[in-house]
Structure formats: structure tokens, C-alpha cells
């Protein structure tokens, strides 16, 4: 099934039901469907065709939901971009996927303009929400697009077309576009709503960015279910979020460990304050066992799902909540209609207790990285059957005797901070671009709220301060990638063979915190 059918089917069932709640407005399924249809007609009018890429560079606003479904209704492929992305990286993404259109917000227009400056090639339709002065010359008004007659764009697309290109931090330092077909998303979302026992009367509150697949799927799954999504921009004010949850009678709350740590810091919270809450989910990084116990105490009526996944297949595993007491540190079993197993260096399954690489098989596995066959071949490899490819996750796992999976560590240097993956090389490349920097090494150090905090050790030839290096990073990187710790040194720690040692640097940086 194509993903925009999630919306039209739910609209057919209950057009007047609330689909989306944001601080600015509430949209029924009928309104969301109508707006997406109008935007699709407008996009088609501006030359967007089947399989074209469309960037959605917005924060968690209702316009972003309309943009995602509008793009799909036009037969095109959407790519959600984190709103804190800076011009340099956005320019890389534009060059990489050559979008036919960019949908954005007034406050982000300067970043888009800088990214597009001096660029040749195919013209990009730039569509923006209106600021206090409307939209500038050369920019198409988002609200004007919604005035179009909503019509079904006859794009001829089928469900093996690409629905989404979602960029992920690559270990080489350049972001990689994960290609997902409609069928991939259909399979992944069907599997997830099955084990979460999702219902049309669910009310899900999400503060996770729509550019992060965990956040994006909250929208896709709630629309699929005909449920309601309460979309918030940030978890910065947990008390305000809890007030909204009480008011909207929220039944589902997706978490990352950073949010759990913030909730558990609030002394005024007591058990039973969110009586409607049916379930909590956690992914992106493991919750400390103590936090699991405290969350269950705080939300006694809610099931807690520990999950694990990566963008390349959306989700890999979940722990059935009834297993939480027996194996609180396990991320569980493969999600429904998929397989997950641990293999040795030759791809052979290993017995319980032996560590190896986690491999994923199923209809949710991506099609590869956009225009990057080398990186694709490194992770998608020949499977058991001649017609399939398996996903090698790069994560080291083991199983217990009953087949439950345990995360052991990463095979590479990827840092997980605030639930997002960061390749140290991407941060190092930015630091290196600052004049006066000779060498830099970036690593993650343990942090009680962030999971890992990004830390950099830098050698300079001229007088640079820690602050200047952080400021440079803040100008060129998404906010979650900016180092929290910068240490200036005369030289970087090296191994006996003279190679810069990330591990030794991590040791020194941890001590510096």
C-alpha cells in the first residue's frame, strides 16, 4: 500500500475526527487530507513529478505534516531535514538528491537561500510559510498553495516507488540518504502498530523531530491507525507537556533516554498523574535499569516497551513488556514479520551467549543509500535466498538461551547523543575547516542526560579558544552535533603505531568533564 493511502483511508472512515493537534491549530482527517491534496496539486503545478525529491525543512509544525502527505500525493519522495541543519550540510543534501522543491518555514529561509546560492542545475521550487512580512520575492507562499483545488494528481506511482529519503550521519563523515519505498514504510508501520496494539482511539504525543525516523513514524502510524497525534516542538518544558497530556488525555508517549532522565529529575511528579497513558516506548539508546524501574513506578498503568532500531530498517526489535522484569537489559526479539539474528565474521549464526554482528531480514529493510553503491554494498549483503539482501547493522549483540537479544556495542565510532547518531568524522571535518586548527579528534563521553556528550580534543597552530571552536561548530552543525566539551592540547594521543587514538582521547576527555 502507498503511504498516502493511510491518510485517505482514515479520512474515509472518520473525516471529522481529530488527526493532528499542534499549539497553533487542530486538524481533522478531512482537513489534513484536503490540505495535502491542495499542496499536491500546487507541487504538480510547479513541476514536481513522480519520483522527484522534495525536502521538508521544517520543525514540528502542522505544515510539516501537510507537506509530507502532500509530497506523497504528488507521487514524489519526501526527505525530512532537521530544522537545525546549517547551510553547508543542506547544500550537500541538495547536491546529493537534487530536489525539485523545498518546503520550509519563514525563519529557515535564510539558511535555504545560503545553501542554494550560486547553485546551477535544475531549478528548485522554494515554498515557505509566511513570516510577518509575507514571503519574499522568488518564494512561493505555502498558504497560497493550500488555496489550490485539491485534486487527485494522476502520477501513476506504485508502492515499490521511493516514499522517503532520510539522511543519516555516515561513518565517513558525509550524510547518507536512506532509501525507503512505500512498501518498506507500510511493512515497518504495520509491524510496529501490531506489537504496540495501536488503536484508532489512541492519542499519541510526540516531541521527537519529524526529521528523526522515530518522530516521523509517530505521524505515519497515527494516521494509519486513524488515531490522534499531538505534535510538540520540544521537551524543554516537561511540565507544560504533562499539562497538555492531561488535557488531551494522551495514551501513548514515545521517549528517548534523555527525556526519561528529564522526567525522573522532576520531584513534583507522582504516580497516577497521567491516568490515560496506555504505553511508553523507548528507543535510540538503552534506558538504565534504574530508570526503567522508576518509570514503571511513575506510570503504573502504562506498558513500557524497550526497543532498538536503526534508520536503515526503521526498527529491529522490541521487548514484550511482560518480559521486562525477567530481562530488563534486553531489547527483546525481532518485530513481527521480520527476523533478527547474530552472526560471526563469515555471516554464520552464533550460539547463545556468543557476541557477533546483528543482521536483519524482512520487508522493512531499506533499498540502499541514495547514489552511494559502495556504502550500500557494505551494509546490504547477499542473504539466505538468492533474491534478497540482508542488513548488517554494525551493532554487536548476543542472545540469551531463549533467543532474547542484548546490545553489546558498536563496531564503529558512531556516537549516540540525545538519541541521535553522530559520526565523529562529520564533526571533525567541521573543526578542521576552522583556520588555525591543525588536528582534531572527536568522541563521545558518558553523560547522565544526553547518554553520550560530544567531546573534542583539538590542536591549534594559532591562538584559538574553546569557545571559538564551539561557536564555529554551532555555525556549521545541527545543534545536537555541537561539542559540549572542547579540550585544547599540544598534541593528540596516539597509539604505538602513531595513529591518533580516539579511545585514549576519550579517556582524557572523560576525566576533563
Amino acid at each position, binding site marked *: 500500500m502507498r503511504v498516502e493511502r493511510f491518510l485517505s483511508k482514515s479520512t474515509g472512515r472518520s473525516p471529522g475526527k481529530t488527526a493532528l493537534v499542534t499549539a497553533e491549530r487542530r486538524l481533522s482527517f478531512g482537513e489534513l487530507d484536503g490540505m495535502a491534496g491542495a499542496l499536491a496539486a500546487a507541487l504538480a503545478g510547479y513541476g514536481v513529478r513522480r519520483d522527484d525529491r522534495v525536502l521538508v525543512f521544517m520543525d514540528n509544525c502542522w505544515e510539516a505534516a501537510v507537506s509530507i502527505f502532500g509530497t506523497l500525493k504528488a507521487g514524489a519522495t519526501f526527505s525530512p531535514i532537521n*530544522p*537545525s541543519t546549517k547551510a553547508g550540510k543542506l547544500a550537500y543534501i541538495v547536491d546529493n538528491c537534487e530536489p525539485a522543491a523545498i518546503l520550509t518555514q519563514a*525563519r529557515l529561509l535564510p539558511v535555504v537561500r545560503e545553501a542554494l546560492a550560486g547553485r546551477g542545475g535544475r531549478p528548485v521550487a522554494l515554498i515557505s510559510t509566511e513570516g510577518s512580512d509575507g514571503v519574499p520575492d522568488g518564494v512561493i507562499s505555502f498558504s497560497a498553495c493550500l488555496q489550490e483545488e485539491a485534486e487527485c494528481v494522476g502520477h501513476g506511482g506504485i508502492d515499490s516507488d521511493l516514499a522517503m529519503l532520510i539522511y543519516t550521519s555516515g561513518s565517513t563523515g558525509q550524510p547518507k540518504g536512506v532509501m525507503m519505498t512505500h512498501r518498506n514504510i507500510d511493512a515497518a508501520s504495520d509491524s510496529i502498530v501490531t506489537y504496540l496494539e495501536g488503536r484508532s482511539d489512541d492519542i499519541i504525543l510526540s516531541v521527537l523531530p519529524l526529521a528523526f525516523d522515530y518522530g516521523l513514524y509517530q505521524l505515519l502510524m497515527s494516521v494509519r491507525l486513524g488515531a490522534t497525534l499531538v505534535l510538540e*516542538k*520540544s*521537551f*524543554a*518544558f*516537561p*511540565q*507544560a507537556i504533562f*499539562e497538555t497530556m492531561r488535557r488531551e488525555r494522551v495514551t501513548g508517549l514515545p521517549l528517548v533516554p*534523555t*527525556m526519561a532522565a*528529564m522526567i525522573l*529529575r*522532576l*520531584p*513534583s511528579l507522582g504516580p497516577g498523574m497521567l491516568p490515560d497513558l496506555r504505553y511508553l516506548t523507548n528507543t535510540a539508546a538503552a534506558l538504565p535499569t534504574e530508570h526503567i524501574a522508576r518509570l514503571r513506578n511513575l506510570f503504573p498503568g502504562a506498558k513500557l516497551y524497550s526497543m532498538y532500531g536503526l534508520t536503515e530498517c526503521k526498527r529491529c526489535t522490541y521487548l514484550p513488556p511482560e518480559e521486562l522484569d525477567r530481562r530488563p537489559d534486553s531489547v527483546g526479539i525481532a518485530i513481527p514479520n521480520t527476523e533478527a539474528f547474530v552472526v560471526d565474521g563469515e555471516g554464520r549464526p552464533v550460539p547463545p551467549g556468543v557476541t557477533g554482528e546483528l543482521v536483519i531480514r524482512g520487508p522493512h529493510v531499506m533499498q540502499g543509500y541514495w547514489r552511494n553503491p559502495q556504502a550500500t554494498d557494505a551494509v546490504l549483503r547477499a542473504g539466505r535466498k538468492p533474491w534478497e539482501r540482508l542488513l548488517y547493522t554494525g551493532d554487536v549483540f548476543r542472545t540469551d538461551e531463549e533467543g532474547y537479544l542484548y546490545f553489546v556495542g558498536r563496531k564503529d565510532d558512531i556516537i549516540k547523543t*540525545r538519541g541521535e547518531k553522530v559520526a565523529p568524522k562529520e564533526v571533525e571535518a567541521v573543526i578542521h575547516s576552522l583556520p588555525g586548527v591543525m588536528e582534531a579528534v572527536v568522541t563521545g563521553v558518558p553523560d547522565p*542526560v*544526553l547518554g553520550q556528550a560530544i567531546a573534542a580534543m583539538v590542536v591549534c597552530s594559532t591562538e584559538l579558544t574553546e*569557545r*571559538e571552536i*564551539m*561557536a564555529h561548530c*554551532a555555525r556549521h552543525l545541527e*545543534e545536537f552535533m555541537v561539542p559540549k566539551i572542547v579540550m585544547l592540547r599540544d598534541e593528540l594521543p596516539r597509539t604505538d603505531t602513531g595513529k591518533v587514538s580516539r579511545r585514549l582521547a576519550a579517556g582524557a576527555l572523560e576525566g576533563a568533564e
Partner: protein
Amino acid sequence: MFEMTKQALRAFMVESFLFGEETGLPSDTESLIGAGIIDSTGVLELVAFIEDRFGFTIADTDIVPDNLDSIDNIAAFVGRNIPNAAAA
């Protein structure tokens, strides 16, 4: 007093969130979250700064946008709390 509080807040934000670059400073009424100035951990830093600088403790029930999501809101919130702190 109000203006002095706002000056202190602006200086803190430039120093802590904008890495010394005043050009990124939002207007006094602008949402700090909406403008992308602070995130979840930024709010915790902001709370620690206010407690330290103005000498009162912020209850977690007071960590809400009405009190903390713009320079004007924070200055008013500080103004409401300083007399209490002085009396205590």
C-alpha cells in the same frame, strides 16, 4: 531593575547559547524554543543560571513557557520571585 535583569539574561544567552555572537540574539518577546536558541538541556542551564544569579530556587512546576520562554517572560518571572527571596 527589569532592564538590568534583561541585560543579564541577554549576556548569559550570548555567552552560553550563542558562543559570543550577539547577532543571533532574539527579540525580548520572541520564543526561545521557537527561535531555536535553547533546547531541553539549555532550559536546565538557564534554570541553573537564574537560581545562581538571582538567588532563589525554581520549583519544577515553575519551569513552564509562561515563565521562561522569552526574555520578557523570564525578567517578569525573576521580578516576581526576588522579593520573596529577599524576605526569606
